[in-house]
């Protein structure tokens, strides 16, 4: 079982079982978190699936963000060091236990 924990904008933390093979964005959306708009459907054309990676399992690593992802995140007023676009992160067992915060809406 691979779990994902999502902190919603009200600060509450919710954990659920993630689907391996889907992106983090798809997992968050399918988990019923309607704060995450993900308007472009995951094709890296907007930044409405912006999240903060609060905790990463010790042995896990995330794919290096592409230039496009980095540029889009730089446009957010809420950009942090741990900002990512969740559509760009495939979810797998090594990420079990990851803690994600949904960024404020720009």
């Amino acid at each position: 079982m691979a779990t994902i924990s999502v902190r919603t904008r009200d600060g509450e933390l919710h954990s659920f079982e993630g689907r391996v093979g889907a992106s983090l964005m798809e997992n968050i959306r399918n988990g019923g978190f309607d704060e995450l708009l993900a308007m472009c459907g995951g094709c890296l054309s907007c930044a409405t699936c912006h999240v903060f990676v609060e905790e990463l399992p010790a042995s896990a690593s995330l794919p290096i963000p592409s230039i496009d992802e980095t540029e889009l995140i730089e446009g957010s007023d809420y950009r942090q060091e741990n900002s990512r676009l969740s559509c760009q992160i495939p979810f797998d067992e090594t990420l079990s236990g990851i803690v994600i915060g949904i960024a404020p809406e720009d």
Partner: protein
Amino acid sequence: MTPDNLTRSFDCVIVGAGHGGSQTAAALRQSGFTGSIALIGAEPEIPYDRPSLSKDYLAGKKTFDRMHLRPQDFWGAREVELLLGRHVSAVDPTARTVMTDRGEYFSYGQMVWAAGGDPRKLSCPGSDMAGIFYIRSKADCDALINVLPDAQRIVIIGGGYVGLEAAAVFREIGKDVTLVESLDRVLARVAGEPISRFYENEHRARGVDIRLNSNVASLEGVNGRVSNVILASGGRIAADIVVVGIGIIPSVGPLIAAGAEGANGIDVDPFCRTSLPDIYCIGDCARLKNGAGIRIESVQNATDQATTAAKAICGELRAYDAMPWFWSNQYDLKMQTVGLNFGFDSVVTRGDPVSRSFSVIYLKNGAVLALDCINSPRDYVQGRKLVDSAARIDPAALANTSRQLKEIDLVTS
């Protein structure tokens, strides 16, 4: 309509289950709406991501289950009743009911019309034959996908985004593609000439036969199936199938018949209210009266207007003022648009189109209105702020790619 015929009653009835309708339901719950909600959709599918139809879904790169805007159980968990596979055929604003093509009546306390549009159909002789396809719904797209293995020669009618995106998909799977556009450039209604010429060059370089200034006079067929597209000029183009992308007609008939102001779209105020009491309209079929007076067909517009309407229903009147944005994917080209270029009086091309990474900036009276950015997310992100502030910048400075947009000085005059 008489109350005796009422089958169900809802505090809010949402007509249309696309991006706008589904976001209205979600935003109502986020805003604390506790009443009953019905989401009435014409298609049998739960709400899904429509833009993927002409891109990854058509290309077979994305399965439908990955296009659901929300999972199936989301709607039940939010107590949103999905009433799918139904067209609303009449609205009675006095009795406060909608009627469906199944003969059902639903009464509403508040109603949000988010019915979108239907594809504009060809009307020339022969346009009722088999082998002619549109790309608006999943069913449209599935019908097209089913015949693709047996279709080599494809004629696309219409050089808008849908037609161009489909052309890119068809070329990537090795089809022979001819694209027929009635105007003198593709994307003529939505983009400036440098963008049009760039996309024409890209598609031609990949083997698309683009015919500009070409009107379709008729379609010929064999045994009721299309075989040739006949141009007004007399030209004939052999076609195994024809794909039509010539825009949409807003689905507003029942609301206009009920007395709502509007014509090609329903007129709405900044809170997405129509002229009829407790009826809102959003998305592709809404026409914002005090804006440019035009309809905007985009996911962003549908989603943000949905939030505006939902908040208004919950008593929070916040005028719609979201920044417009849009995207199109063709081949390896990612286009991102920010702002609306209506009424522009000059364009600046920033970067060299030959590099396949550049932007076109639209100005009116010296102020930045909008940008179309090709493979240039940096300009898109930074340009957004220029659009937001209607920045006045020397065109030569805008064109100078040795400086980022955020580093350019404003004109101080």
